[in-house]
């Protein structure tokens, strides 16, 4: 199965749910969907096209909105499903019902971006160290960190 066949099959099976399909490089396919169509698209991909292996979930802070990318691996390359959610109301449906192995990535997403993943089987807050201040999400672009002064043992005061 090469890229073209995958694109053809995806279009014919899930064409109504997909906003855009891009194929920027060999064995790299990017599919854009609306957030509410995410779970059916992922389910369809898994069932019909054998995209069972979720490689990663990345979040990107675009300013006004967050982009979430689900990277799938396959024997014939890699497929990425992307979707955008507004920053004001960062909610996304969990895909754990389709791919149980996604849980860690989605919890990471909750932790680093403050995106709320709905219906996560294990929604324990995924804060960084114990006692990390609530509301600080390190990977948001507007979050800056100032390194505190270090004490140098035996150094100048």
């Amino acid at each position: 199965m090469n890229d073209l066949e995958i694109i053809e099959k995806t279009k014919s099976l899930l064409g109504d749910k997909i906003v855009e399909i891009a194929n920027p490089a060999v064995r790299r396919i990017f599919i854009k969907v609306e957030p509410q169509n995410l779970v059916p698209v992922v389910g369809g991909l898994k069932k019909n096209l054998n995209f069972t292996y979720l490689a990663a979930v990345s979040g990107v802070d675009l300013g006004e909105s967050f982009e979430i990318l689900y990277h799938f691996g396959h024997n014939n390359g890699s497929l990425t499903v992307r979707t955008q959610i507004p920053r004001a109301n960062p909610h996304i449906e969990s895909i754990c019902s389709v791919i149980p192995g996604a849980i860690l990535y989605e919890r990471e997403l909750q932790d680093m971006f403050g995106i709320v993943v709905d219906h996560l089987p294990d929604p324990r807050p995924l804060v960084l160290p114990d006692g990390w201040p609530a509301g600080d999400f390190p990977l948001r672009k507007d979050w800056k960190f100032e390194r505190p002064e270090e004490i140098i043992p035996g150094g100048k005061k």
Partner: protein
Amino acid sequence: MLNRLVRWSRIKSPWILHLNSGACNACDIEIVAALTPRFDVERFGVLLKATPRHADVIIATGPVTRQIKDRIIRIYDQTPDPKFVIAVGACAMSGCVYRGAYNIMGGIDQVIPVNVYVPGCPARPDAILDGVVKLLGKL
């Protein structure tokens, strides 16, 4: 006389505890490599011990992350006196490339007192050996 015996025995038998506070594994595998046939620190009586209660020298690697800070202090407290700390690698000294990251407290010396610093990214097993020997020379 007794003091001399004790001093001699301390120099001849430093048991080490390997403490990883968030290192990238490079220094750790070099420490383990120091135990293996080519470098063989057991020649100097060094044994790698599993629990802090048995250890004399803590070999610490890696920058201190916020999460592990309290555990490091606890392990340091659990080690019976006299105890020494060797910071191995650039991260344990200052934080190396991770200096300035939000989850890093800096080098090991920000948390517990350090006796010997061994530079390198990662420090070679020979350098680690040298660090241990230098520490013993200070006794």
